[in-house]
């Protein structure tokens, strides 16, 4: 009985956190911003009023102090466990992620599966303001989680990253994290949150970015991902002739091999494609064209993957996890080279092979015929 009621919280005395954001202020203090939803009781007529999102900010010398600083002007206890998105401000990411990583790891109230995003171009206050204005999702922080998942399936641009993955990649030698980036754009008088590029981390700091094309290449290099990706290819020189395909399934494999004393990476990507649409009046989707379509898709993916590799090597950040792969498949080699990996990584050769199979189409077997 002595230890009883140790963490009893009535939920109407608590605030359910949807999102929390961390940034570094100019005065060197950590800012902690939490978004919560004001529960709105159902009215007697049964109609639900739109739930209202509220953001609360605290500052402090460390993340935990900042989080707890909120209690100086906020009266409810937060239930952190329901926060499924974490935004990290650009300033903090550029300075040092270790300011918050221990907090993220050690705190038992945080979910390891929380999705982590980088906020670039705007401050976390701005993005919270934009989030609180959006009323269409149950709560907008949850909307963003859904957004990145749908985007990955439909477009295959950005790869979501969970809190625990971020920490693991910061801690494990031979792999660096890359975070999807969010920004706010003005659309009329409304603010809209968009996903834009990915931030590349090295040695716990933000050092560069991947543009959408590179991000797509990064997406294809994820061995965990299995689905998604839109491929549009130019069919001929005419700008009006295009074919659009969707990658319904893919597997990606990266294996190191040593050639002439140099480390090389062999990357195998196997895709199953679905034909989506033809632009222009050429009859592209005919059996005779299948090989060429597949070839063009392969080239497209290759190009995206290569551009990602080039960017990563330029930034000298092993976001592709090549070090880890080497350690796994060439342990002897890795032992010798681990210390100099920073010098080795930019010059690792790569050999990308993509194999596409066009295996399904939509409702129509032929291209649309105009009169």
């Amino acid at each position: 009985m002595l230890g009883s009621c140790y963490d009893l919280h009535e939920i109407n005395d608590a605030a359910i956190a949807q999102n929390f954001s961390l940034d570094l202020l100019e005065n060197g203090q950590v800012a902690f911003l939490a978004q919560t939803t004001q529960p709105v009781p159902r009215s007697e007529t049964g109609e639900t009023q739109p739930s209202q999102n509220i953001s609360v900010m605290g500052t402090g010398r460390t993340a935990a102090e900042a989080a707890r600083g909120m209690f100086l002007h906020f009266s409810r206890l937060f239930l952190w466990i329901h926060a499924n998105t974490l935004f990290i401000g650009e300033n903090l990411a550029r300075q040092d992620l270790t300011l918050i990583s221990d907090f993220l790891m050690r705190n038992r109230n945080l979910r390891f599966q929380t999705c982590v995003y980088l906020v670039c171009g705007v401050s976390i206050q701005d993005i919270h303001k934009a989030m609180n204005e959006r009323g269409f999702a149950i709560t907008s922080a949850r909307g963003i989680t859904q957004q990145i998942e749908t985007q990955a399936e439909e477009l295959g641009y950005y790869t979501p990253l969970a809190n625990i993955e971020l920490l693991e990649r910061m801690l494990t030698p031979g792999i660096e994290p890359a975070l999807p980036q969010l920004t706010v754009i003005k659309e009329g008088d409304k603010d809209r949150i968009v996903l834009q590029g990915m931030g590349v981390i090295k040695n716990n700091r933000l050092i560069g970015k991947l543009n959408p094309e590179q991000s797509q290449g990064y997406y294809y290099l994820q061995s965990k991902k299995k689905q998604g990706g839109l491929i549009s290819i130019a069919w001929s020189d005419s700008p009006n002739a295009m074919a659009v395909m969707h990658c319904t399934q893919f597997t990606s494999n990266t294996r190191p091999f040593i050639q002439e004393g140099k480390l090389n990476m062999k990357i195998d990507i196997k895709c199953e494609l679905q034909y989506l649409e033809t632009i222009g009046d050429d009859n592209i989707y005919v059996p005779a064209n299948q090989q060429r379509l597949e070839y063009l898709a392969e080239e497209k993916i290759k190009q995206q993957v290569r551009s990602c590799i080039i960017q990563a090597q330029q930034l000298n950040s092993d976001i592709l996890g090549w070090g880890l792969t080497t350690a796994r498949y060439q342990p002897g080699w890795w032992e010798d080279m681990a210390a100099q990996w920073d010098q080795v990584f930019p010059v690792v050769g790569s050999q990308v092979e993509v194999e596409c199979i066009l295996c399904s189409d939509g409702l129509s077997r032929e291209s649309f015929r105009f009169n």
Partner: protein
Amino acid sequence: MRYIKNKPESKPSPQEVIHTDIPASLDEIRSQLDTLYQFCSDIVIREFVFGNPETRGLMVYFDGLVNKDEIENNILRPLLLDIDMLDVKGDLTHRDIINDVKTRIISPAELKGVKTWDELIRRIGSGDCALLIDGYGEGLVAGTRSWQSRGIESPDNEVVIFGPKEGFNETLRFNTAQLRRRIKSSNFKIESFVLGRITKTDVIICYIKNIAPDSMVEEVKKRVNGIDIDGILDTNYIKEFIIDDNKTLFSQVMHTERPDRVCGQLLEGKICILVDGSPMALVLPSTFTDYITTPDDYYTYYIPASLLRLLRFTAFWMSLLLPSLYVAVITYHHEMIPTALLLTIAASREGVPFPSFVEALLLEAMFEMLREAGLRLPRAVGPAVSIVGALIIGDAAVRAGLVSTPMVVVVAATGIASFVTPSYNASLVVRILRFGFLFASAVLGFLGIMIVLVIVLLKMVSLSSFGVPYLAPLAPLNLAQISDIMVRRPWFVNRSRPYLEGMRNQQRQGNGKDEGG
């Protein structure tokens, strides 16, 4: 005191009379009868004279308990009128009159000589009539019992969809007859006892010899014989005397009103106790698994019966744990609920003035009161109460913001689930334990629920009913029997009886020993 002493002390007190033998002289019999049945207005004592030379006789019975036609036709008429049919022409000189009367003259099917007042009184009280003849210290007791009783009706609180609809009633003989009609083997034994110093109630113990372990039968008889009480009005009196552990919530014997259920249990080697005047049969030993089985299981095709049993299991756990789980989740373990659901619950709890635990306690208590009120109310008022209680109070409480809607849903679901439990005894236990779990969950969350669950389980495994572990066959584990707990095993694979220590014949089908008779 002096006043009493001064009275002529010719008459002994009824207590003294009762332990004496019946005297030979009819005058003495008459005076002792008057002593015994002083102020008993329902006693009928008829004196008469019969035969040649005239012999005095006397007939005693209780009005209303006997069939008067039978007495007139089978006893009085032969004695008074048909005595001439004897070849002695009514001359009874030097003859053993009582033996003649017994063997030759009167004709009731059931006739027995008794020599003590004690037994005579008991027999008359049961509705027999006694014939006493001058000069013989023996009474002839004829079975003439007949009284108004409730007919055989379908039991109210053990309703089945299929299967027999008959239930026990208050007359012991009808009840044993119902059992005998179903089990015709001579191995089916019905042993009779008389308990209750004042009520002199007939109690029977029935079992099937060779199936019920002898040691257990002996033990039950020993315990029943050990009861010394002034009256037995219902089987529960006996139950409380003979159970192993009388400091526990869990019922160690099964109550049933259904003869078919008793027979099913007897075939599994159980023992049944019936009491005159009570329609409830006790079946023992009874284990925890009897809580969730109903006779309907065995009368329905095995596939739906098994699914229904699973449903009943679910309902059992729900009625035990649902409110406490809900309270634990919304006060301690918010991470267990999906965010959207948590938001809905939070919104509905917004503005509720009580802590969740108090809210649950209030609603649960209200529900129990409604349930209890519904039981005792006259039938005509019952629906009105349930409408007022369930609909109006529930709805108005939510509208007034006193309780939250999810809590009403949880309590209502628990209520429905608790009605699924077939045994009333079991649902009593569940209802009490539910509050225990609720307290624990308010204090320690899931940890508290777990602690109480462990305590309850410890108590249950330590219990035994007449040597049978209470949780058998779950603990100790009996794999062969466990399949009949989770699902209803089809009859064609149900080859053996549930194991009881000392059971001699476990085989149900095929190469089992012939049960004889």
